[in-house]
């Protein structure tokens, strides 16, 4: 794996570090400390960890919403946040709130225009992503009438609308009912099958164990353990969602890390 040329990696985090300062005189808070991860096209990486472990920070760095203080963050060889990188990325923020006065279609049309999607493909693509999100009938409705789950699915739709090579999903299962989560799982598998790279953060360990080719467990900004589920769990993946051996490993790691 380490022998791949740089540009072949969909995601490269090399010693990525980021700190925040809470206020003018506050001490610096380390959000992520020297994180090194790589992901190839067609693979799914799950970022796991408790709140404040650096999952969202890592996703935002890949999306270009923040700059690394230390190390490098690359998307298909381009610095994350550059125009070239952003053209290849689709991002779903955590619990997004969209303009209430727009309809689902109007919002996706807006996003399509910003992504320089070709006009002849735009409408077809919008319908396709609405279909994937189970929002075909809700397309003409105003976003102010959408439920939390519907907004989350619309967020997914805008993230994949322009057919990005790298899909970044921050807590994609938030607000989704079990049927929605199943549809999400199906979508992630389909995207991976199309050769896209997917990075998502989640608290749903069973989901991560099922879907991911690579897992990274973060704690207080540090990478505690990373690898494929098989490597980490020492056997084939468990098919049934619960009970989860990954969950056991996770809890074990959390306990030892304090």
């Amino acid at each position, binding site marked *: 794996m380490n022998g791949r040329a740089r540009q072949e990696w969909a995601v490269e985090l090399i010693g990525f570090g980021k700190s925040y300062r809470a206020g003018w005189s506050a001490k610096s808070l380390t959000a992520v400390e020297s994180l090194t991860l790589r992901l190839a096209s067609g693979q799914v990486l799950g970022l796991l960890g408790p709140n404040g472990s650096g999952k969202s920070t890592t996703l935002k760095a890949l999306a270009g919403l923040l700059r690394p203080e230390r190390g490098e963050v690359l998307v298909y060889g381009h610095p994350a946040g550059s125009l070239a990188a952003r053209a290849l990325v689709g*991002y779903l*923020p955590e619990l997004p*709130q969209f*303009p209430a006065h727009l309809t689902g279609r109007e919002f996706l049309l*807006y996003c399509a225009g*910003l992504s320089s*999607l070709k006009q002849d493909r735009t409408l077809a693509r919008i319908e396709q992503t609405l279909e994937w999100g189970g929002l075909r009938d809700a397309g003409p409705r105003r976003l102010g009438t959408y439920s939390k789950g519907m907004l989350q699915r619309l967020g997914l739709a805008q993230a994949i609308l322009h057919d990005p090579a790298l899909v970044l999903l921050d807590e994609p299962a938030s607000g989704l009912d079990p049927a929605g989560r199943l549809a999400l799982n199906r979508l992630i598998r389909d995207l991976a099958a199309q050769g896209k790279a997917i990075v998502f953060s989640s608290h749903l360990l069973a989901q991560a164990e099922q879907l991911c080719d690579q897992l990274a467990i973060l704690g207080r900004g540090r990478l505690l353990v990373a690898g494929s589920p098989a490597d980490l769990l020492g056997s084939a993946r468990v098919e049934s969602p619960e009970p989860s051996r990954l969950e056991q490993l996770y809890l074990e790691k959390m306990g030892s890390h304090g």
Partner: protein
Amino acid sequence: MAEFPHGGPSASFRRTRLVALHTLGEALRLRLTALLGMIGAAVVVGALALREFNFGSAELKFIGDFGLGAIGGFGTLLAALATAQLFFSEIQGRAAYCVLTRPVRRWEYMAGKFIGVAGLLALFTVAMGLLIAALLAVRAAQLEGAVVGWTALACACAMQWLKVTLVAGMTLVVCSYAGSALFASGAGLILAVVAHLRSFVGEGGRFGWIKVWPNLALFDAESVLAATHPPSASLLLGCAGYWAVYALVFIGIASYVFEQREF
């Protein structure tokens, strides 16, 4: 896969236009817009009460002044409050992340925000201007010897629009680094006051540095309306050029600061 966004100027223009139209659409749905529009209209219509004073043809001056004052005053409030609210609602709701993670340059986003708000202020100014014109027409017909300078009125309204859009620009600069809509709108209004105080500053002295700030007193709409002759081309060109320089400066500063901003 989507096209790589090299697009050049036409793609930049398209993205900026999209953000501007989106911003204008949101702005027109703000309760704030409706509220300030209604209050402004009420102030203008309230000028009809001046009939009681029997000023004669001078009443038209008062109607014009009240109308332009309403555009200036409520327009300034709208410029600062709407700019801040539109900016922060997207940031805090994270809808802005869906835009900024796309191949949209930060300056395109800021320019689009400014143009969207400028569009809102233009609609506000035109609506109020038409209302003032209607009142002036009605009273001019009723008062003997009363004449309305329609060109002067249109130019005066345009001057007020130029002034309030610069207030929006100032607020946008604050938005680029501020943490809340409240701070940004308050700071925007204070900066508008500084811009009016600018005309007090003499050469040199402790406060000479204020001279880098635009002088909003130059956009003197009431004088344009009150003058016996239509405004000169030099006045109009000078105001437009002055406005253009500072509008570009504010968008530039806001874009530069916003470029450094992290989420």
